[in-house]
């Protein structure tokens, strides 16, 4: 005798109109998703001849014809693909192999703690350090020469800026391994690994076999998006390619970027076509990877059914460890080298260390670098704060709405990470010029905000949702409204994840290169743009100063975030 269910009537929200309940999502569409879409459109349209400011008013395929006439295009496209797939595949392999063989051991924890700080160092700093490390006249050679193992002049080996992009791939791996490892650990936190592993091992499988067969398939769905983001990024990176990538021809993204800045404005048309091509390449790389996923999972299934034959290999375990350790060693050595250079007075080829040290470069450069430092800090803090505010609003809204809201937000926020920056930054610049915001602080902060928001959201969403919902329910039942609960309860309890998310957003902003150039109209120099400009400048001492500052600034952010909240964290950890 059931009567039909009447739907839950809306709990009265008082005077607030319906639209305000979705205010956060509205804002997300307004200041984030729509502009990104406009940015893509603003890059696609000129690719087909439409750019009113330059007289392009009719559809035409001429830009594409021009694009295909650019010398070196096929090599550039191939380079893009191989760099993207190569970087992602090798980084993924290192992370998986390392975790499979070493997860749960002390060494895993140690290497992980060494890898974490690398996350906050901008790509450019790592690339500059790595370039110096492996150059024929670089640190490795100098140490060998000092030890007497290498004599004479540096060999004519293409270790940096080599034709095939190997140096570029290696340099990118140094940053992507820590990133993927972090994403994997986040995913691990949501999958019950301990018990599954125990069961699998009790069934007679080795740790690494159990990890590959049981844990990885459960983890992978959550790793998918980060992996695609790495694919898109490494296939289209410009700043690292300028430092480590080949020059004849350069990668597609570099070619396109140069096209956008050519004095002959008509080049913008084929550059836009090139940017579209870059978008397509990223998509293609993702599809190829997807295919690889299917193949890998099919073969994995067959192996499982066959009982997972094969014994654990010590060689594989050692290789995995060596891979991860090399990443840490190379990155740190490179960064140490640039720091050393900043204090160098003279460093000749034959010695492993500088002959004379001096503070002169720092004294000289600090006043000059101060401007870039301040700009970087201001932009970073502003964009991170803006991202934080919107993130908190979104997370609060998700609480009130259903699971669908959460998924919607996730996809909206993650989609731009899958787009190559060069694929839509020109459109963003056009949008800014038309709104007279190009070259202004607000335009620049907002452009950085577009890239900072996804990371802040990703960083904060898990801890936010993990907070016991009964706290909020109790407080509500004690008579406190939602805003009061947010301010007096949630924010204090989540101070640490909030500050960490802020520090992460800040670090992401510090490392941005293309956004500053496109949106800043040349009026703004940040530490990263300066470092790239100076990297080929012939004075490693000056570059060293800028790289050191690039490292220092985000690290300071994290140190503050963790240090300021340590006491409270200990307290609430005990109480929760």
């Amino acid at each position: 005798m059931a009567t039909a269910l009447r739907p839950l009537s809306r709990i009265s929200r008082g005077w607030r109109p319906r639209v305000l309940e979705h205010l956060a999502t509205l804002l997300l569409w307004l200041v984030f998703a729509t502009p990104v879409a406009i940015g893509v459109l603003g890059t696609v349209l000129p690719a087909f001849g439409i750019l009113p400011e330059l007289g392009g008013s009719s559809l035409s395929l001429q830009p594409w014809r021009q694009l295909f006439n650019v010398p070196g295009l096929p090599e550039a496209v191939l380079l893009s693909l191989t760099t993207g797939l190569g970087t992602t595949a090798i980084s993924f392999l290192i992370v998986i192999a390392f975790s499979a063989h070493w997860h749960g051991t002390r060494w895993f924890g140690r290497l992980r703690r060494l890898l974490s700080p690398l996350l906050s160092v901008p790509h450019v700093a790592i690339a500059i350090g790595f370039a110096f490390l492996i150059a024929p006249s670089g640190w490795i050679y100098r140490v060998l020469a000092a030890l007497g193992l290498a004599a004479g002049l540096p060999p004519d080996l293409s270790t940096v800026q080599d034709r095939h992009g190997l140096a570029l791939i290696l340099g990118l791996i140094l940053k992507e391994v820590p990133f993927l490892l972090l994403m994997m650990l986040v995913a691990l936190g949501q999958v019950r690994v301990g018990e599954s592993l125990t069961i699998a091992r009790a069934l007679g499988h080795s740790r690494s076999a159990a990890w590959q067969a049981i844990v990885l398939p459960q983890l992978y769905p959550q790793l998918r998006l980060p992996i695609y983001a790495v694919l898109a990024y490494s296939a289209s990176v410009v700043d690292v390619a300028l430092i480590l990538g080949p020059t004849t021809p350069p990668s597609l993204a570099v070619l396109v970027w140069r096209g956008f800045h050519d004095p002959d404005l008509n080049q913008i048309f084929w550059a836009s076509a090139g940017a579209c091509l870059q978008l397509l390449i990223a998509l293609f790389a993702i599809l190829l990877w997807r295919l690889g996923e299917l193949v890998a999972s099919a073969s994995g299934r067959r192996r499982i059914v066959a009982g997972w034959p094969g014994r654990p290999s010590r060689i594989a375990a050692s290789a995995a460890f060596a891979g991860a350790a090399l990443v840490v060693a190379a990155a740190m050595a490179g960064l140490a080298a640039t720091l050393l250079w900043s204090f160098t007075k003279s460093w000749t080829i034959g010695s492993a260390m500088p002959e004379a040290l001096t503070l002169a470069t720092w004294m000289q450069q600090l006043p000059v670098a101060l401007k870039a430092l301040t700009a970087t800090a201001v932009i970073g803090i502003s964009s991170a704060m803006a991202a934080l505010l919107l993130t908190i609003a979104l997370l609060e809204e998700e609480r009130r709405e259903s699971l669908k809201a959460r998924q919607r937000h996730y996809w909206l926020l993650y989609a731009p990470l899958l787009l190559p920056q060069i694929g839509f930054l020109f459109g963003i610049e056009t949008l800014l010029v038309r709104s007279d915001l190009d070259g202004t602080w607000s335009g620049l902060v907002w452009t950085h905000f577009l890239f900072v928001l996804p990371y802040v959201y990703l960083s904060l969403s898990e801890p936010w949702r993990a907070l016991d919902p009964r706290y909020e329910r109790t407080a509500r039942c004690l008579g406190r409204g939602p805003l009061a609960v947010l301010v007096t309860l949630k924010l204090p309890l989540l101070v640490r994840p909030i500050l960490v998310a802020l520090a992460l957003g800040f670090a992401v902003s510090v490392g941005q290169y293309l956004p500053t150039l496109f949106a800043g109209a040349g009026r703004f120099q940040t530490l990263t743009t300066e470092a790239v400009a100076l990297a080929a400048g012939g004075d490693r001492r000056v570059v060293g100063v800028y790289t050191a500052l690039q490292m220092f600034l985000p690290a300071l952010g994290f140190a503050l975030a963790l240090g300021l909240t340590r006491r409270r964290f200990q307290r609430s950890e005990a109480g929760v």
Partner: protein
Amino acid sequence: MSSGLVLDAATLGLPGRPPLFRELSLRTGPGEIVTLIGRSGSGKSSLLAYLTGTLDPIFIASGQIRVDGRDVSQLPPERRRIGILFQDDLLFPHLTVGENLAYALPASVSGRRQRRERIAAALAEGQLTGFEDRDPSTLSGGQRARVAVLRALLAEPKALLLDEPFARLDQALRSQFRTFVFEHARAQALPMLMVSHDPADAVAAEGPVVELAPFADAAAASSTAAPRSFNR
């Protein structure tokens, strides 16, 4: 009778699926304790969430909730004056004991001295005099549980819900604490709805026991099987 907690033809479910349980109607008078029992997954906790107004929006529900004659079904949780106690004490870890209690004290109690006196009086009730400045993590489980009750009562609710509040306590503590809760709630003439697995709780409650029958089973039973007894 217009006082007490009244639930009128309540039912819950996920869209596109049959409801979790048959329509439930019950009434709890002031100082009365209705015990709600049912199998795991029968929707007891969801029902409590529905009563407090913190149900996940994915559910659809129907029915009416009246507290002291006032229809609160459309009100947000903070205006319903329905308190809730969980298994865990859920004392806010970033506030001291005194601050936790102050959080609950209505703003209508104004003046620092008056508020302090009310808090001190509450603590005295729980034999916790002088605990105002203590960090909740330094209290024992039993002490924290008492603070949680005092906090809920300080908010001057018109009804109190208990979601298996004694399950985490060991045997020795359980009956002592149970008595504490029931005594104080009855002293404020609060109607109570308690979810519990422990028959001893039901016995101590000395009130009606309602079984939340899953919808599917209820097809076999008659419509009057839902409330086993119904106090008027």
